[in-house]
């Protein structure tokens, strides 16, 4: 009983306190079918979110609703490379792009596999994932790879299997982002049952999916991690970027605990897989 009261209180203070007022309390509601749940506590009294987690979604293909599509090279790879159909994770269905930004998304998609090497003089082309770049936030969360949460009172490490990307969430931290980055500047706090991570300081180099959905360096993401059961987290992210979108929008999806005996985040160092793609044209040709 007491749990439920606390959740209600937290929700009210959230609605009052945050800029999110346009998108109220769904944030705290358990996903359909889940009764109210109070997570086991870490030593500091906050919910214990430690563990290895993974999304089961096709959002990395496209965060919006999408049908099955052929891969880039069906003549070589047949069904191997084909994309699954999937239901989107965007609340309300569509990303609220500024009309003039839709062309950029389309271009991104069309050129997603035309990768140029990092150059410094011309803008990068192609999906950052294809080039084994850090995937950004929130994309890292719903890529088809697990990640591990290592929770301490002052710092929470989230370390992702994809290219060993990591980010450090600084709890109750005041300092603003010192510099732009791929995984952003992550500051966290607890709101009752929920870990809230405020992410700023992004560069404009990451995408949301393989469909070319993108953002600018004005991106601001607020993530919420709430345990639904010992084996599920509800993940929500509110995405704000006035240069690209007409209003903030939200994604939500469950994360599943990996429970296999001795399961571990494996190593996926993808650089060797992309070097020929990036640099093959600069390799000395045999005479």
């Amino acid at each position: 009983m007491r749990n439920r009261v606390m959740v209600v209180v937290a929700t009210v203070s959230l609605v009052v306190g945050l800029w999110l007022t346009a998108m109220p309390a769904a944030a705290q509601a358990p996903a359909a079918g889940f009764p109210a749940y109070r997570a086991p506590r870490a030593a500091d009294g906050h919910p214990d979110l430690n563990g290895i987690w993974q999304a089961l979604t096709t959002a990395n293909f496209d965060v919006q609703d999408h049908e099955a599509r052929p891969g880039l090279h069906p003549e070589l790879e047949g069904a191997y490379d084909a994309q699954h159909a999937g239901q989107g994770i965007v609340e309300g269905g569509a990303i609220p792009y500024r009309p003039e930004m839709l062309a950029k998304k389309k271009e991104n998609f069309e050129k997603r596999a035309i990768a140029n090497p990092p150059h410094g003089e011309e803008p990068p082309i192609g999906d950052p994932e294809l080039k084994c770049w850090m995937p950004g936030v929130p994309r890292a969360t719903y890529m088809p790879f697990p990640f591990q949460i290592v929770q301490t009172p002052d710092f929470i490490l989230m370390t992702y299997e994809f290219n060993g990307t990591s980010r450090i969430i600084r709890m109750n931290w005041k300092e603003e982002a010192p510099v732009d980055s791929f995984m952003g500047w992550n500051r966290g706090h607890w709101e009752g049952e929920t870990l809230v991570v405020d992410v700023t300081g992004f560069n404009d180099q990451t995408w949301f999916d393989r469909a070319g959905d993108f953002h600018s360096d004005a991106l601001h993401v607020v993530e919420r991690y709430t345990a639904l059961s010992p084996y599920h987290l509800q993940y929500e992210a509110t995405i704000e970027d006035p240069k690209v979108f007409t209003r903030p929008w939200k994604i939500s999806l469950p994360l599943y605990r990996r429970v296999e005996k001795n399961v571990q985040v494996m190593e996926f160092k993808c650089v060797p897989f992309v070097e020929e793609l990036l640099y093959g044209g600069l390799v000395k040709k045999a005479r």
Partner: protein
Amino acid sequence: MSHRSLTSLGVLAVMSLPAVLIAGQAQTTAAKPPATTPGAAKTASPAKTWTPPHTPWGDPDLQGVYNYATSTLMQRPRNVGDKQVLSEDEAAEVQEELAFALNRDRRDGGTQADANRAYNDFWMNPLRLKLTQDKRTSLIVDPPNGRMPPTVPATPEKQKERAVAAAMNARFNNGFMASYTDGDVGNRCIIRRRNEGGGHPYLPSIYNNVAQIFQSPGYVVIYAEMIHFSRIIPVDGRPHLSQDVKTWLGDPRGHWEGDTLVVETTNFRSDDSMGRPLGRTGVVWGGADPDTYKITERFTRVGPDQINYAVTMSDPHTWTQPITMLIPFNKTNDQIYEYGCQETNYDMYHWLSGARAREAKGEVFNPNAPGARAGGAEGGGGEQEER
């Protein structure tokens, strides 16, 4: 540079320091200071009453951000004989000379030296100019002479591998990379070079000697900033991965011996995961054979602000005996930031396009030409050279 002053000093007899220091690792109290030298008198570790903190679930608490830079050389200079620890005065002199030797703004070495000094003081952590607090003459504490043990004669196969690596080195060092595979693991942004401190063993390098340690029940995670390398170490007694799964970083398993975290790491890969040999620096330290290489690391918190890191490497195919180094991890208030590498690896583009441009002008690389540089690490650092 340090030769001169060190040679002029008498050789002091000391007790067997390595034995003392290593014994200290396995105990719950701080390492005992070496007793007999003046230089060591002030190295006393924190008060004996200090008890290492523990996490709420009972593991020794190693957490924090640490810097393991030091100017103490890996190998003991030959001219100091068996002296293991410097006096205060000797140490001060060595540090002064180091400050001069490492001053990259000098212009007294000619063009090539200038180019090699491009990584100037900006890159250098101040700790890089300080000897270990106990003023040892080498990071190696075993073999007791502080030097690398004799190597095992290379097999014909290994000699062939080394010749291939030397050719890659020569192309790289002379600006004629044929392919990205002439880059080493660091140039290629896969992992940091083993001899540059970003991976186990954690060895001091010119810059970026920082790591943050996180702990949760059953895990210790060491996050080295450079090339963003989170090393997740299970400490829950689980077995290693199958030998069918080789990795760049190795598969670590930890356990506690008293207040010491002991980590053993296996499953190192011997190719670049595309079936090609790893030429220039290999994937494990010291050019060892990944299949027989063994690394055991011991982390002991000896005070509020210091972890003693004792690391032992062995490989019967490479060295005649194991090597143990002792390196202090010093707690710092600095933070760990994101380190992109692949994302902005402009170097690779420029190395390759530069080489192709030279070829287009008719230049041909001749490794035997006068002035061609055969090997060695490029300006970014590399293993501490012996001065």
